[in-house]
């Protein structure tokens, strides 16, 4: 296993779970103990400390060597070489991940420029942020916004510069992007879109239109590039990533690639969920199984407090598609769902969307959407609950159950009154209403009050 990040660690666990006899050696380039990359934005935001980033220990029997970078793969001899050693393999899994894209801007090599990818990146950025007043984030994708939110949460003034038409333009439509911009503004994050950056002066990011955005540090979040160097050096087929088939096998049948470094059917994912799907397939194949990877349905979920964003599938709708949408920009809520053949093909949900979990599952499973589409926006179907019993005694149907614990209907209360029950206590004694959980007591009191007013022939006892 070359690489012991999120994908590599998962694949080791999957291998050992399937076959306790398989001998696994994992070589990780980063020196510190393996950590959960998902939590780096929480670390940046100051919500967790480094201890909280620990991931589960490697399974017993796995030989995990950290700080040992592989420098070459000799596919012919089936060995990998670290600085000093060689390791033979029957099956090799490349989980080398990706590296941040560094745009070719003047000044980008200055010391106060930080990528946001590894724990070390995060440590450096945190050290720089301490005492700094302003940060500029270059790149308004998922990672850039998470970095911006984290730094803003630490009290910095943050500007996000994004070359696209709007933030997260790969995931969001125009309206969604506008609502997100507004939400971020409420959190103290300004957004600049559609203008390329020209240079980092060390104290400001200069845009092509001449605007200068001051900052004490610059954070790069311009995307990632699959790390294919080892694969290319070994003569494996490499396009954008290391090309793999449905078995996660590269052009060499003894070599697999998973995670950010792999390219499957033209797609390179940069997220953990697909990497884990791939890790399971590779582990299954290596241990003699026949699992196949057929792609992942990707749901993008922004992890930033105060911003609840879920995006999945394609934000664009062809003319035949059905679009269900809701917007409440003042409160930062926006939802847009694209439906075709009764299935979700894409969705953007931003802000307070009570059905977001439901929508994510429908997309994930490619399942039929509800007949009442409002359910997707508002949670359960609107107005489906029976009216509260106490709303108006007069309008309550005779068959309405007033006391559930004892199945006492309005008709029984009325009958108890007609039979001479004139106080709540007498009606209760005759019907057993209120004697279970007690929560219908107000309703019973209301009914008795109402009966005493609509039935003037009777004297009301105290």
């Amino acid at each position, binding site marked *: 296993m070359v690489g012991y990040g999120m994908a590599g660690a998962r694949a080791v666990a999957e291998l050992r779970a399937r076959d306790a006899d398989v001998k696994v050696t994992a070589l990780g380039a980063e020196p510190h103990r393996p950590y959960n990359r998902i939590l780096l934005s929480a670390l940046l935001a100051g919500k967790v400390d480094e201890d909280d980033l620990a991931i589960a220990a490697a399974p017993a029997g796995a030989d995990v060597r950290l700080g040992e970078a592989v420098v070459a793969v000799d596919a012919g001899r089936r060995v990998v070489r670290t600085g000093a050693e060689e390791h033979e393999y029957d099956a090799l899994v490349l989980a080398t991940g990706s590296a941040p894209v560094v745009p070719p801007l003047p000044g980008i090599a200055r010391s106060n420029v930080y990528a946001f990818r590894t724990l070390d990146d995060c440590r450096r950025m945190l050290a720089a942020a301490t005492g700094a007043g302003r940060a500029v984030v270059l790149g308004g994708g998922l990672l850039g916004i998470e970095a911006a939110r984290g730094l803003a949460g630490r009290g910095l003034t943050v500007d996000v510069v994004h070359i696209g038409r709007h933030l997260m333009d790969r995931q969001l439509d125009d309206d969604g992007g506008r609502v997100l911009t507004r939400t971020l503004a409420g959190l103290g994050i300004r957004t600049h879109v559609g203008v390329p950056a020209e240079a980092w002066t060390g104290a400001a990011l200069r845009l092509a239109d001449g605007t200068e955005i001051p900052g004490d540090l610059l954070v790069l979040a311009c995307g990632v590039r699959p790390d294919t160097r080892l694969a290319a050096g070994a003569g494996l087929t490499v396009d954008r990533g290391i090309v793999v088939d449905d078995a996660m096998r590269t052009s060499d049948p003894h070599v697999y690639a998973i995670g950010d470094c792999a390219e499957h059917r033209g797609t390179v994912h940069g997220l953990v969920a697909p990497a884990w799907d791939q890790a399971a397939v590779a582990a299954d194949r290596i241990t003699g199984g026949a699992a196949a990877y057929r792609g992942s349905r990707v749901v993008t979920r922004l992890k930033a407090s105060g911003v609840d964003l879920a995006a999945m599938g394609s934000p664009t709708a062809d003319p035949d598609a059905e679009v269900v949408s809701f917007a409440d920009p003042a409160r930062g809520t926006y939802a847009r769902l694209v439906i075709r053949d009764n299935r979700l093909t894409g969705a953007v949900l931003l802000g307070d969307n009570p059905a*977001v979990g439901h929508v994510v599952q429908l997309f994930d499973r490619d399942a039929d959407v509800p007949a009442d589409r409002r359910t997707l926006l508002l949670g359960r179907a609107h107005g489906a609950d029976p009216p509260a019993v106490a709303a108006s005694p007069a309008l309550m149907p005779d068959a309405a159950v007033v006391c559930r614990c004892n199945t006492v209907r309005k008709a029984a209360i009325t009958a108890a009154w007609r039979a001479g029950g004139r106080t709540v206590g007498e009606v209760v004694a005759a019907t057993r209403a209120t004697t279970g959980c007690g929560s219908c007591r107000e309703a019973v009191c209301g009914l008795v009050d109402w009966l005493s007013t609509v039935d003037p022939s009777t004297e009301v006892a105290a």
Partner: protein
Amino acid sequence: MRRDFQPGNSREAAPKRPLGTVVGMPAADTHCPYCALQCAMTLRAGMTGVEVEGREFPTNRGGLCQKGWTAADLLRHPDRLTQPLVRDGGALRPATWPEALDRVVDGIRAIQDRHGRDAVAVFGGGGLTNQKAYALGRFARVALRTRTIDYNGRFCMSSAAAAGNRAFGLDRGLPFPVADIAAADAVLLVGANPAETMPPFVRHLDGAGLIVVDPRRTATARMASLHLQPTPGTDLALGNGLLHIAITEGLVDKAYVDARTTGFDAVRAAVSDWWPARVERLTGVPVADLHATVERLAGARRAVVLTARGAEQHAKGTDTVTAFVNLALALGLPGRPGSGYGCLTGQGNGQGGREHGQKADQLPGYRRIDDPAARAHVAAVWGVDPADIPGPGPSAYELLSSDEVRALLVFGSNPAVSAPRAARVERWLRGRDLLVVADFVLSETAALADVVLPTAQWAEEDGTLTNLEGRVIRRRRLAAPPPGVRTDLEVLADLSARLGVPTSAEPRVVFDELRRASAGGAADYAGITYDRIDAEGGVFWPCPDAAHPGTPRMFLDRFATPDGRARFVPVTHRPAAEEPDADFPLYLTTGRVLTQYQSGAQTRRVAALPGEPFVELHPDLAARLGVADGGPVTVATRRGSATAPARLSDAIRADTVFMPFHYAGAARANTLTNPALDPVSRMPEFKVCAARVTAA
């Protein structure tokens, strides 16, 4: 709002004494025969039958649900058995007690001679009094000398018990009085629907602070200010996800974790994988609701986490409960006055019934049967050689599917309806050489028996039970059973005597023996007497001696582990034993309704309790299947199929159908359920399996 009229008004709310009650007629202050809340009630022998009245008690605050109000309707029910039955030529016919008992004992002897002692099995119930549970375990180990004994509590709270033992070193369903729940600012209720299953318990809940986890929007969920509606079988991921958030939001009570627990680092690493978006995708519970849940629990001055069957009845039930125990520990709740983790026990004596030896691996006092010291202590009380006490036996479902078992004696249970994969269990029951059932009606299991022994009902016997909060209370006799009927203790004493081991059938004598047998055990009853129960309104165990005040709140200073610290245990989510697929594309989950209790053998016979079997499904699903509300639908799984009328409701997820398990025959839900067992608790997976639904 609900709180305003709770304690003060409940007395006033209780109905006046019904007309027709004659002053001076016998009366008994006792408790309801049904669920673990054990609502206090007073019985009076009236001119037209036994009158029931709610009685003020901390658990029910005077309240009763309709099951309790109508409990006496079975005392003179036409279905009541008043003489033994024996099977002759394929049919049951009346017999005398000596004939029936001889037939049982002759059968036992013949089978044990031929197949060995373990070929005779005993199956008990969580509704039996402490005395009966104790006597049953002793009967099995001393009179039958069989290791093969277990009980239906295995199907009830065994996962919570296993998780509690693992974390705290001891399992008491609620380690605090139920009234603490009313005083908590936040209550997380995982897989419980007390508004239907124990309605007067709801008097302790305040909707504002209540968070309910349930795949259905139940009556309880509707009360709550936050309802999490997860995919069936994903509660473990939910629990881990909540703990993940507690960690990433800095809400862990680190001082408590340092001072009172061990193992946090491994759990922290284990939940690291369960970030909110992943949990949302698996469970369907929105990330924002996950956050809100943790923030409310962490922000409350007093918070309580409770699990019940919804979380527990899974092949991963023990780990699922552990996930929520881990959450409670991280938030510093257990052992803190007014806060904590607890399990809502289900059956009437689900607590006491799991402590005194009717469980396969257990001896009285919650002792382990494989512990030499425990065996020596109990053997001394029983007057036997420790080596003669058998070892642990198979768990309930394993017992009910074992070919080695040739004879089965059933007390207080109806496994033909309540066991998983019930059609197979029914076939198995039919295939025994000898099936003996003690019951007061001809339950579905009794109908299969070779010998049926008619027993007393709750109003006709004395005993003690231990309610859901660990409080030992008294069941008091109102009147003698009808002629021809014997108590379970009498039946056990009769059988025991015939087997050459004389024992007492007197409840007070048996209780005193139980106290001695439990002395020094985890569930120590040694200091609990009838007089103290009467004087103190029940006594909480452990209570090791007469001077000990009992233990309403446990773990305040230390947990029951060797080092006194609670144990974090890392757990990870895995799929249900059977997930939906192309052939069986839906989830089936099972549960209860308000008007019925357990297998329904009692409540289905009470005319005043409405209730018909049904299949609850979402209108969208019904439309796709062409099913109309009320129309018959068939639910099929790999174990069989069941048919019942459709009940359309948008309170259930469209990928899930629900059936109540109280019914027999064509509508028997347990025909469908999956007997995949939890590796620790041996709990079957009642709460989730894959199903196909069609219009019948």
